[in-house]
């Protein structure tokens, strides 16, 4: 296993001064994936941005786990709709009159 792309959760929590239980809760809600290797728990590098976003929602905006779950789902839909909008706008350009 390539440990280079994995972040030890213990270190992550120490650096960000948050409780381990917060990461546990995110995992319990199915919001993140936790990799267990040789009795240590890790986060994947590409999940970091999402985890930090959820931290801000919880610690700065007082949003609970249920709220984070709902918001994460809605944000995925928003991103998907924005992509769809961009594609549709590009298609509409086909019908624009040339000057």
């Amino acid at each position, binding site marked *: 296993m390539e440990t280079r792309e994995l972040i030890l959760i213990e270190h992550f929590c120490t650096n960000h*001064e948050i409780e381990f239980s917060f990461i546990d809760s995110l995992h319990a809600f199915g919001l993140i994936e936790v990799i267990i290797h040789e009795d240590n728990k890790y986060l994947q590098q590409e999940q970091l941005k999402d985890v930090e976003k959820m931290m801000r*929602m919880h610690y700065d*905006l007082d949003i609970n786990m249920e709220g984070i779950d709902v918001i994460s789902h809605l944000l995925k839909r928003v991103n998907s709709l924005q992509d769809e909008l961009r594609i549709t706008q590009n298609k509409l*350009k086909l019908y624009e009159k040339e000057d």
Partner: protein
Amino acid sequence: MEFIDYYNILEIQKTSTEADIKAAYRKLARKYHPDLNPNDENAKKKFQQINEANEVLSDPEKRKKYDKYGKDWKHADEFEKANQQQSQSRTSGGGQQSYGSSGGDFSGDFSEFFESMYGSGARTKQTKFRGQDLNAELHLNLMDVYKTQQQTLTVNGKNIRLTIPAGVENGQVIKIAGHGTPGANGGPNGDLYITFTIASHPKFKREGSNLYATVDLDLYTALLGGDLQVDTLDGKVKLKVAPETQSNTKVKLKGKGFPVYKKEGEFGDLYITYNVKLPTNLTEKEKELFTELSKLRANGN
């Protein structure tokens, strides 16, 4: 300096209590937080204003100065000193008045401070903060994204060597991890997001990996059939035109479209629409012949 009405920004009264201010800030922060409003510049600006207003109004000392001095509240200490000196010189019978500097705990622009630290109002200890993400726009022509190429961009004074994959679409956003602003207190760097703006091509319209073009076809080739050379993005091709080809007939040239994003060697199709052009400036002989033809048709041949 233009006056910023912090009470207005937080949608509260001047008589609001600390609890009211906290509740108002929390409510608006949840509404406008950039994490909850992706790609929304207005929300981002509003969030910065809300944070600035909260930082001032939630601090009793700062609020007092703001309430007393309004737009000049940052120079409150200067004014206080000046007032003290004035009243001292009045009681001592005159003397020189002098104005010292404020002592400087409000140096710099508050908005710039919050631009780098949004969302951290509730956590003021030495927490590590991830750097802010940066957004940039890259304007390209259609041919610039026909083949994968490398380009050097300068973002925030730094040169970044970027590989632009073939087939990237107009409006598409690519993330370059770690090339945003540096993190605070040892936190990780933010990311750089590049939005591609692809200009329209004069001849080819693009939809995904398919291209569309309209080609003029002379009347005689349309009626009698023949060969026609058309342009594609990688050169000319010869098409066989079937006899009696109608105007607006479409032909598909498989694999002559645009590269499929991130799929090496895979291409979309090119759709050609024929536009049959009637001859103009007819000679007398041509008019004669066309008149004869029209009579043939009229006679039911």
